[in-house]
């Protein structure tokens, strides 16, 4: 009996060791946490004269009376911030700079990775372009963003916007135009200094509420024609085809930019 007991003990120890050697660690079971957030999806819409933009067709007339067409628009927005009435805000941090390209459909919808705290938000603001601290050459090694580079001799960093198209001049001849915005140069007094052309904008009527696990679809609309009016009409016959080295022309477009962006109806996405 004693012998049997001894053998049983040895066998037990051995089996324990065998199982311990082969046993896989079980992953820890995560503790359930409160899920007090929702999500947002931005969609980017481009309009001319209140209608969805039609590209490559000479069908628009700007406020200065220039017939024009739009071929494509590329631009950055950054530091998108959602503001609550209590003064707190939520800045989108999963991607601080976002690139939109009318020729790349995948850029026209952005499912934001950030968790958005539930609650009521009064407004949405963002920077058009990239602020001076971040707008530095080579931060984007890969296309399509890298193709927005703004040459180093002109201040470096990246185009904030490329708005390309064609217009009919006073002789009714089609001319190309590049309304490109980036770091400007001020050569007043014979000295060259660089001018930042990014600006902050707050979307009008951009309040929304987000509940737990909600997904809100927020359209951000660029009204392309607004770049060329209010407060100053932008006349292609005056400013010509290219303005990257014309800070006066870029400044007019930037000043006109305050009302370029609006929102559409913010909807709750059904799951």
């Amino acid at each position, binding site marked *: 009996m004693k012998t049997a007991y001894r053998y049983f003990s040895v066998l037990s120890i051995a089996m324990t060791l065998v199982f311990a050697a082969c046993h896989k660690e079980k992953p820890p079971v995560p503790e359930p946490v409160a899920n007090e957030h929702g999500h947002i999806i931005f969609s980017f819409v481009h309009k001319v004269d209140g209608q969805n933009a039609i590209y490559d067709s000479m069908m628009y007339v700007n406020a200065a009376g220039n017939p024009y067409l739009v071929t494509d628009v590329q631009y950055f927005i950054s530091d998108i911030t959602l503001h609550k009435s209590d003064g707190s805000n939520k800045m989108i941090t999963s991607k601080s700079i976002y690139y939109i390209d009318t020729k790349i459909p995948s850029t026209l919808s952005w499912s934001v990775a950030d968790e958005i705290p539930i609650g009521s938000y009064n407004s949405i603001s963002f920077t058009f372009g990239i602020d001076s601290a971040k707008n530095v050459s080579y931060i984007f090694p890969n*296309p399509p963003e*890298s193709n927005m580079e703004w040459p180093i001799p002109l201040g470096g960093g990246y185009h904030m916007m490329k708005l390309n*198209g064609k217009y009919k001049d006073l002789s009714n001849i089609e001319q190309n135009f590049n309304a490109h915005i980036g770091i400007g140069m001020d050569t007043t007094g014979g000295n060259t200094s660089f001018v930042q052309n990014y600006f902050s904008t707050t979307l009008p009527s951009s309040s929304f509420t987000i509940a737990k696990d909600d997904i809100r679809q927020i359209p951000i609309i660029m009204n392309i024609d607004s770049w060329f009016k209010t407060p100053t009409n932008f006349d292609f016959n005056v400013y010509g085809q290219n303005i990257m080295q014309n800070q006066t022309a870029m400044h007019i477009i930037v000043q006109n930019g305050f009302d370029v962006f609006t929102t559409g109806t913010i909807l709750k996405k059904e799951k």
Partner: protein
Amino acid sequence: MKRKIGNSVYLLCFILIAFYACKKDAPLPGSPDEEYKPTPYTIQIPKYFPSLLNIPADNPMTVEGIELGRYLYYDGRLCGKVDTLMTCASCHTQSHAFENGIGHGYGVTGIPTPHVMMSHQNLVFNSSGYLWNGKLYAGNPAYSTPTTYGGILEDVGWMAIVAPWECYSDTNASKAMIQSISMYPPLFKKAFGSDVVTFKNIAKAIAQFVRTLISSDSKFDKYLRGEAQLTPSELNGYVIFNTEKGDCFHCHGTILFTTNQFYNNAKDSVFTDVNDRYLVTHNPADIGAYKAPTLRNIEVTGPYMHDGRYTTLDQVINFYSDSLVWSPSVSPLMKKVNDGGLGLTPSEKADLKAFLLTLTDHTFLTNPAFSKPAGLP
């Protein structure tokens, strides 16, 4: 005491058995598992270059795959024909940055290629489609067949075999020929785990080799790295290139000296080439548009433009300065088209050319790792 020793022995045996039972089986000597151990190859990304690499998941880079690809790239038997020794390198020579330096290529039939050669350099950084019109792009249904790869660099090898202006052969003949050459089955075994040659693996190996062809050591690169200084003329050309004076950067910008996008650059007012970008997009705005080729090694990659109409860099610069022509689909980036061009002065043209010559990468053009390997006919 004896019993205690006996128990200890039992315990030890159990432990040994337990550990043996949990141990993974080692490959048997001579088994396929033991022999197929390709060495992963990591592309060293040069400073400022894209980090995004166009390498398909099913064709990872390996030292053995690249070595095999290099042999195949230079082997005239790849066509699978006994009466030709045409190779990839027949039209893509290293001294010309892996294009031919004469314009159109002529295959075994004497039929010219639709366009002049494009160089094989820095293609691993391109995800916008290959060839002048970009028709070789991932997801193109035309290349989603059992014998093709879905429109990626691997399909260039397939095209080289079947196109009338190249080998004008078939993939079965090619793989049979390669299979019959004694040096190749062991190389395929090392690269892909089987000594049975398949055309898919031929194309994969060639694509791996082509992806290693990276040019990043020109005088301008050295200037960016602080290792060389540009002359005043070269610096002035750099400024012309990168301002609206020359406005080269919009299409030939970034560290790659190409956006890999497609533009009608105001060469013509009437278009007859059916292989332009319009073929791919069917967008009238793309009529007469072609890929902006990289300007790296531009000194040795003439003749220039998709049809090789200009034989010298001076002619190209004169064209952009003085000879642009309007067409309805001309790129809006060609802003001076109605003025005939940029209107550069002779000294500005000379400076711009001087800068372009700083893009020649002699290290790349003579790198032994890219040259014809020994042992090939």
